[in-house]
């Protein structure tokens, strides 16, 4: 699934990485606990989280994730945006809550750990 499709489906705003929206992600992971995320290695995954601090960006960077969606209308700090820019990570922000955001992506074919036709 293209990052631009995620943006549209979640009615999300692009915080940074506008030029990378045509990149693809193949799986997704939703959590506010970073070690849960770190337990889950999949290529080109998107992270959905309600947590706001720089460790979210570092966690995504460690995992080679190229997109983070902040749920519940949370906005990343300037420092987080800077870290994301350095690492080439796209940041999106949606008003939807975690459960709904994950459900929408799942329903549209972005399943947790395998690829359907997306």
């Amino acid at each position: 699934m293209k990052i631009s499709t995620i943006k549209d489906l979640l009615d999300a705003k692009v915080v940074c990485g506008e030029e990378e929206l045509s990149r693809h992600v193949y799986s997704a992971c939703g959590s506010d606990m970073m070690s849960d995320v770190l337990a889950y290695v999949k290529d080109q995954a998107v992270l959905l989280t309600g947590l706001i601090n720089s460790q979210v960006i570092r966690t995504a960077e460690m995992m080679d994730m190229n997109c983070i969606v902040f749920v519940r209308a949370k906005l990343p700090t300037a420092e987080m945006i800077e870290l994301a820019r350095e690492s080439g990570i796209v940041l999106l922000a949606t008003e939807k809550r975690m459960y709904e955001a994950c459900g929408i992506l799942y329903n549209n074919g972005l399943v947790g750990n395998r690829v359907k036709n997306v």
Partner: protein
Amino acid sequence: MSELLNFHFVVDGDDFTCAGQASVQVKKNLRQLGLPPEIIRRVSIAMYEGEINMVIHAGGGVADVNITEDFVEIILADKGPGIKDISQAMQEGYSTATDNIRSLGFGAGMGLPNMKRYTDYMSIDSVVGEGTTITMKVNIN
């Protein structure tokens, strides 16, 4: 088995925002060396978990990364409170983290199990009241 490169970092225990910087730097260095992405990811995640643990549980410490032809070795040493029961600490879900740490996104009790999962070798040397040293290795071939 000769050491090709080593990196040394001081991990500040007072600044949660900066925690993980050493791991980010190591990831960059390993990329420059052209190591396979899968190896880099395993080293980065294991070191990052260990680095965060030093900050949230032990007040900081030092990190050393040694790269040889055959493996990447990560040694994390702190002078924190130590770990009383290592086999308990290794269990998924076991954590002594406070609510404050949990609100920062850590304290799922997954860090040490992740470190074990992503490395080929891991040993924990810990004395209560003196500190903890964790050694991990990821084989390159």
